[in-house]
């Protein structure tokens, strides 16, 4: 039988197995290789909610989806073409993500009586047989047996050999999509540099998986995807949290400031702490504090001392930090607060994504407490957004909230990375020392940005005290004067709003600047919305898109654009938060599209929502 080579424009595949099966690593290897092949891509890791769910159960299933293609890819894909399942529980948890008629590659060793039982299939059930009758193509592979056979001369124990099963499977998928093995070989040799026998065993399993797929003719076709026509440049693959780490480090480097990160571990933000703890040679200091309050307190203390102070957390941790954010606001010190949002309230669903901390970011503090809020729109955009956040914080002496989310934090995409010389300058000038006969230092005078001087300890003649008690204009002395409080309250608000002067105007993301329907999104929903708007426009619908990266203050031309459309639709993964800000500030009769399921929007549901909005015009 000959094998057909089929050209595809896009493909979506999903790896699923037990937490111990190494699916995240398998997925990220496929991602890197695919990026190197020149395809555009977007990924969605799907972590199990419980870290130590019993092996083999549905709760312990870990998944990784990648959408890639020869055209621009903006979302990780609604449904997959190929589903790889390592056991029965993985099938049970993921069959809903497989397109009708899709392919299942199943490790049949994971479908024994015990596995069926753990996955809560009945003892007599034959789930693979059953899905086979539902129009799916099932390709059963005894991965365990084949991997053991492949590695029988490796000298490794059976236990160690079984750890290479994921590489055998990856080899099969590499064959299916015509991928090059070299990047993964290199990766394995680096990863197991100290254990070359393990590296070689994994490489053998990978190669034998590919040979198995080639030789056995279980597949009737394989797929080829041309490189995507994307903007020329140098690319690398990156996740949101990695891009955040690099953005902060770059800001340190360009501003000449040391970075001080005070943080407390929390899902899904901990990787920022991990990443920055490896940047010491860039003058980045990390401090794992005893709690969230100490984490932000230490960052503010360091900011007083002249560091770029940063704290990273997720919604519940941000709640604990609110009093300190207010203090930094009245201190008027630079501070960057990273919130990698997750599904709430309370513990909620820590490994799932959501956009429900926007109002917390904008309003969630005691007193009138304006901070700047920026939100990255994709994994790679975390770089530019956090870099900008660092710049705004230091230029305006103000706390900046950076609203990432669990999806873009862990999701990956190709990044056309800049060279260091292309990055904006971040000029920082500390206040200069004074002699005894100079005029007394006034710590709350202001420059054209309304920013006060950054006067750091160790500077002669600038001794001054800052505190949470209201300050007198200019002198910074304690003041209970009613008019002064009114004045300073407005001053802090005006300064925050003045940031809009340096923000870029919003550009249309898709479509014309006037029309029937304007879709307004913010943050991590960018990719799905863009894909959906693009497809609707292909179908001839009058839809345009803008996407907000600046939530407080808004860009200067937002009101004007909103007024140019018959209808404004605001999709959000929350109960309607941006829409409240828009209605409040622009008096626009916007309509929401809100789903709070802990997962990104699917392109199909958005398209349906856009159509409905247009029909009701």
């Amino acid at each position, binding site marked *: 039988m000959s094998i057909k080579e089929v050209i595809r424009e896009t493909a979506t595949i999903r790896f699923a197995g037990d937490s111990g099966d190494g699916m995240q690593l398998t997925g990220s290897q496929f991602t890197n290789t695919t*990026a*190197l092949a*020149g395809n555009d891509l977007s990924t969605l890791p799907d972590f199990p909610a419980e870290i130590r769910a019993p092996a083999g159960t549905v709760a312990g299933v870990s998944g990784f989806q990648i959408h890639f293609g020869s055209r621009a890819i903006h979302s990780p894909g609604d449904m997959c073409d190929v589903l790889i399942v390592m056991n029965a529980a993985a099938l049970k948890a993921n069959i809903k993500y497989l397109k009708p008629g899709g392919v299942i590659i199943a490790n049949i060793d994971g479908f024994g009586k015990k596995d069926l039982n753990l996955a809560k299939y009945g003892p007599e059930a034959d789930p693979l047989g059953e899905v086979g009758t539902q129009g799916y193509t099932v390709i059963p592979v005894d991965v365990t047996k084949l991997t053991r056979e492949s590695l029988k001369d490796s000298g490794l124990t059976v236990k160690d050999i079984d750890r290479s099963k994921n590489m055998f499977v990856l080899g099969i998928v590499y064959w299916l999509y015509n991928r090059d093995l070299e990047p993964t070989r290199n990766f394995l040799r680096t990863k197991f540099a100290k254990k070359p026998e393990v590296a070689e065993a994994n490489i053998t399993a990978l190669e034998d998986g590919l040979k198995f797929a080639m030789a056995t003719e279980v597949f009737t076709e394989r797929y080829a995807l041309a*490189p995507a026509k*994307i*903007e*020329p440049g*140098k*690319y*690398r*693959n*990156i996740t949101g949290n990695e891009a955040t780490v*690099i953005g902060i*480090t770059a800001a340190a*480097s360009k501003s000449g400031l*040391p970075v*001080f990160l*005070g943080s407390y571990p929390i899902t899904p933000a901990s990787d920022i702490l991990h990443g920055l703890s490896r940047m*010491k*040679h*860039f*003058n980045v*200091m990390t*401090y794992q*504090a*005893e*709690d969230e*309050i*100490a*984490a*932000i*307190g*230490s*960052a*503010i*203390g*360091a*900011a*007083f*001392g*002249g560091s770029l*102070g940063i704290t990273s957390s997720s919604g519940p941790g941000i709640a604990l930090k609110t*009093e*300190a954010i207010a*203090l930094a606001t009245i201190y008027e010190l630079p501070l960057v607060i990273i919130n990698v949002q997750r599904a709430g309230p309370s513990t909620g669903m820590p490994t799932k994504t959501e956009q429900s901390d926007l109002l917390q970011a904008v309003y969630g503090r005691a007193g009138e407490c304006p901070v700047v809020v920026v939100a990255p729109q994709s994994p790679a955009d975390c770089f530019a957004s956090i870099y900008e956040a660092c710049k705004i914080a230091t230029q305006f002496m103000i706390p900046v909230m950076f609203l990432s989310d669990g999806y873009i934090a862990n999701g990956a995409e190709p990044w056309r*990375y800049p*060279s*260091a010389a292309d990055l904006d300058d971040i000029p920082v000038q500390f206040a200069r*020392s004074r002699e005894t006969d100079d005029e007394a230092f006034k710590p709350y005078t202001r420059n054209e940005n309304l920013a006060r001087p950054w006067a750091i*300890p*160790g500077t*002669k*003649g*600038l*001794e001054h*005290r*800052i*505190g*949470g008690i209201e300050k007198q204009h200019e002198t910074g002395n*304690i003041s209970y004067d009613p008019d002064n409080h009114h004045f300073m309250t407005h001053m802090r608000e005006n300064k925050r709003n003045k940031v809009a002067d340096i923000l870029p105007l919003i550009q249309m993301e898709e479509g014309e600047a006037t029309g029937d329907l304007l879709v307004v999104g913010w943050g991590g929903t960018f990719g799905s919305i863009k894909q959906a708007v693009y497809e609707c426009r292909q179908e001839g619908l009058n839809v345009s898109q803008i996407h907000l990266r600046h939530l407080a203050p808004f860009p200067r031309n937002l009101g004007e654009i909103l007024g140019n459309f018959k209808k404004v639709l605001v999709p959000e993964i929350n109960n309607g938060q941006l829409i409240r800000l828009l209605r409040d500030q622009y008096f626009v009769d916007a309509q929401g599209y809100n789903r709070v399921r802990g997962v990104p929007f699917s392109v199909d549901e958005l398209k349906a929502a856009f159509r409905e909005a247009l029909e009701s015009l």
Partner: protein
Amino acid sequence: MAISTVSNLSSKDFSSDQDVRWCPGCGDYTILKQVQNAMPELGIPKENIVFVAGIGCSSRFPYYMNTYGMHTIHGRAPAFASGLKLSRPDLSVWIITGDGDSLSIGGNHLIHMLRRNIDVNILLFNNEIYGLTKGQYSPTSKVGSVTKSTPLGSLDTPFNPLSLALGANAGFIARAMDRDPKHLKDIILRSEQHKGTSLLEIYQNCIVFNDGAFDLYTDKVSRPETALYLEHGKPLIFGKDNTHGIRLDGMRPEVVELGNGVSADDLWIHDENDHFKAYLLTRFFAVGNEDGFPRPFGVLFEQERPAYEQEVARQMAYAKKRNGDADLEKLLSGDETWVVV
């Protein structure tokens, strides 16, 4: 102990232009005075000194010092001071706190600061009451304290701050009182000289809401019988005319009368570096000295161990050496890249 005196600074140079706003007669005034007196003796330029405080009567302290200062959040001064000292080890950092601030709302930060051993000096003003909020009992108030919030008397056992500090692996613990200013100043200087976190508990009279809480120790007449002044290498002797001492009977301390065959040679010799004995000393803590033991003042314990910020600096230097020059281009590109033309 040799103390380098500097320069031309005097205590007045450390006094800010702000009006001091504690109640007349408050013990805070003496402490402020002694801190200002101690400052010129540190040999540190005043621009390199930072006072960090939480919230409470005592925490207004930084506003009155003509140094850098941060008035922060209730209980959180150690957090701010930690970030400041880690990023700026060149600064002399002081924390001013009270019993409510450091032992109630900020208890967590206090114990973590002590175990990390960041080189800052904590002055804990203990007045066994909440003053700023006008008279509620605190975590150091004696059981049965009748206050605004405990009309029938407080029920919970108070902290023993110095035992707590030792339990948190503090490297320096000491006690002083507002009414013995000379001793207070000496111990402030000792605290500053310790490299690592120093905790100095200062008995401070709140004349408005808890007047006389420490009269037993501060009253000049009763003090010789009730207060035990510790000196390294000297026997534990107290009492008017030095009539009494503390002897160790195995693990148990006992109060003995000197004379009748008992001499100073038989007594417990104070060793600031002895962890076990320090613990016993912190247990001389009975209300009203009812167990017969006097309350110790001075340095109870000092242990030299690396300050946390030095260790952090060491790791930073190591990482710089190991990774060579920070290469931003390389960081941006990562290990695997491709070119689209």
